[in-house]
């Protein structure tokens, strides 16, 4: 087990390195550069070249990359080209917000998806199965940002009330802080819930048809034992693998939801940075997001090995 996790950790390093090259080069391909934008809007310095040299943007690409990587390893992501504040400092403030939103969304997704998926599989082709499947397709079809818009809009029209879109710090008001995440996290989790539910149902159906499950029934075991103990444990393995992909998608979704609900997380930080061509910020956020995804996938792999004893490398 330990060896397996260690091996996965080693495999993760080259993929992180490849990702770092992509992360570093992508924002540099943006049309129009930050220097032009700054000169137009804020009239910094006198000419383009002077400002470029001052920011170190006139040196060869690989020199800039190498220098950047060296600093990253030491925990320095540079400073924002606009606010001149260290990116790490800003990220540390925003990362918890996005993580809170993302983890809560994942929690909602699993809590909704598993019971419904199990019910749909056990009662295959019944009314509840039909309803569950239709709801899942609906959940995959309706855009989250539209649901979010309606959730803000409709109560405002009907009852003159709308959910709070101001951010409250945890230290100021614990309950207000937590409750402002519930709605966006729930809506963000819907699409993942639909995907997880469909997979749970399909996998459980496959396992329920196997011989050992028939044996379990033949022994006269109760339905709850056959389903929960014998079947679900095996059916859940592929579902766990999909969680890794779902985590990445949920993190991507935070870009939209932080925008709509006014949460000062990484997604919004990234969105603003792309609009302002703030390279160090774009790189920093992308790097953190990729690291979180790779780390989460590592965790998923470890869980996978734990659930399925056949996997031992």
């Amino acid at each position, binding site marked *: 087990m330990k060896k397996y996790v260690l091996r996965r950790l080693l495999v993760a390093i080259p*993929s992180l390195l*490849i*990702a770092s090259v992509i992360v570093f080069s*992508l*924002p540099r*391909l*943006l*049309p129009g550069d930050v220097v032009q934008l700054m000169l137009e809007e804020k009239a910094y310095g006198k000419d383009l070249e002077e400002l470029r040299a001052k920011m170190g943007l006139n040196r060869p690409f690989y020199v800039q990359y190498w220098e950047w990587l060296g600093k990253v390893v030491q925990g320095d992501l540079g400073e924002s080209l606009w606010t001149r504040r260290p990116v790490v400092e800003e990220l540390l403030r925003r990362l918890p917000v996005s993580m809170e939103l993302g983890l809560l969304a994942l929690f909602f997704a699993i809590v909704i998806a598993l019971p419904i998926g199990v019910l749909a599989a056990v009662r295959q082709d019944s009314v509840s199965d039909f309803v569950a499947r*239709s709801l899942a*397709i*609906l959940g*995959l*079809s*309706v*855009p*989250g*940002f*539209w649901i979010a*818009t*309606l959730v803000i*809009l*409709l109560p*405002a*029209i009907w009852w003159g009330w709308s959910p709070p879109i101001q951010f409250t710090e945890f230290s100021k008001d614990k309950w207000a802080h937590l409750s402002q995440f519930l709605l966006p996290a729930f809506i*963000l989790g819907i*699409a993942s819930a639909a*995907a997880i539910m*469909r*997979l749970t149902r*399909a*996998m459980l159906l496959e396992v329920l048809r196997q011989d050992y499950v028939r044996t379990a029934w033949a022994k006269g075991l109760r339905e709850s034992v056959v389903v929960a103990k014998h079947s679900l444990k095996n059916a859940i393995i*592929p579902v766990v693998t*999909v969680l*890794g*992909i779902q985590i*990445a*998608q949920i*993190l*991507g*979704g935070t*870009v*939209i*939801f932080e*925008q709509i609900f006014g949460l000062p997380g990484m997604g919004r930080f*990234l*969105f603003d940075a*792309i609009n302002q061509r703030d390279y160090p910020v*774009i790189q920093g956020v*992308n790097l953190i*997001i*990729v690291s979180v*995804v*790779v780390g989460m*996938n590592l965790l998923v792999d470890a869980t996978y090995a734990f659930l399925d004893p056949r996997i031992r490398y």
Partner: protein
Amino acid sequence: MANHVGALDAPRTLRDPTRSLRALGTLWRFCRAKPLGAIGGLLVVLMIGMAVFANWIAPYSYDETIRGARMKAPGAQFWMGTDNLGRDIFSRVVYGARVSVTVGFGAVLLGNFLATVIGITSGYFGGKYDICVQRVVDAWQSFPFLVVILSIMAVLGPGMLNVILALGVLGAAAASRVIRGATIAIIQHQYIEAARAVGAGHLRIMWRYVFPNVTATIIILATIGLGGAILAESALSFLGFGVPPPYPSWGAMLSGSGRSYMYTAPWMAIWPGAAISLAVFGFNMLGDALRDLLDPRLRGAGGGRLR
């Protein structure tokens, strides 16, 4: 032998009168077996019809400002009301179908072409080539979809062609995985061995023996992928990185002025979202039904999508 070939060729030149009847029969059986799939198919046909015949269906042009009709509520003259610039929302929704259909089909054609090439060669050759390709696919899949696409769109700049390029390339990874799996199952069959024995080259085997057997898979992936692509386009346009105004994209109609005026004119935020949901719902339903009928092995493969 020569007689045989002639006998097979002859009916092709004559039109078989029962053929269209048989097609109708197949359609009827599909509707009976998969009523939800049939509803999905109907929605898809409606949407494509709206896109193709937008000029005839829409009572106004998509960027025509109607004098004295700012933010009018839905009624007899304006079925879905008008927006803050006095444009008819129904007309804009109808023209918006064009954007969605164009981007959807474009992205899926490009994505599935790439996925087919990658998937079939990866599954067919196997070995080191397969391992390398699959690691790249892994990495591609573990990036958050929206983050990657925002970064790509920021590089390419907004525009319909760029949206198609970005969505097509991104959608290819997941689909190639499924096609690879199907290819591996097919090359175990004896007829592949037989083809190799009579001296068919790699290209010929892949094109004449493997490809025809994965077309059902490709059609299913494309149908489900279309829903995903339309959803992704709307999310991009919502964030302001999609198809630029004044051309109406459903996602863009929900952002910007749609959001700032929605409290006084809620219909501005309701209809475009309903259009996206119905269109994607249609493609997903149809794709699900096709998958159940054509290829039950794919159950649970899911569609690529993002919020």
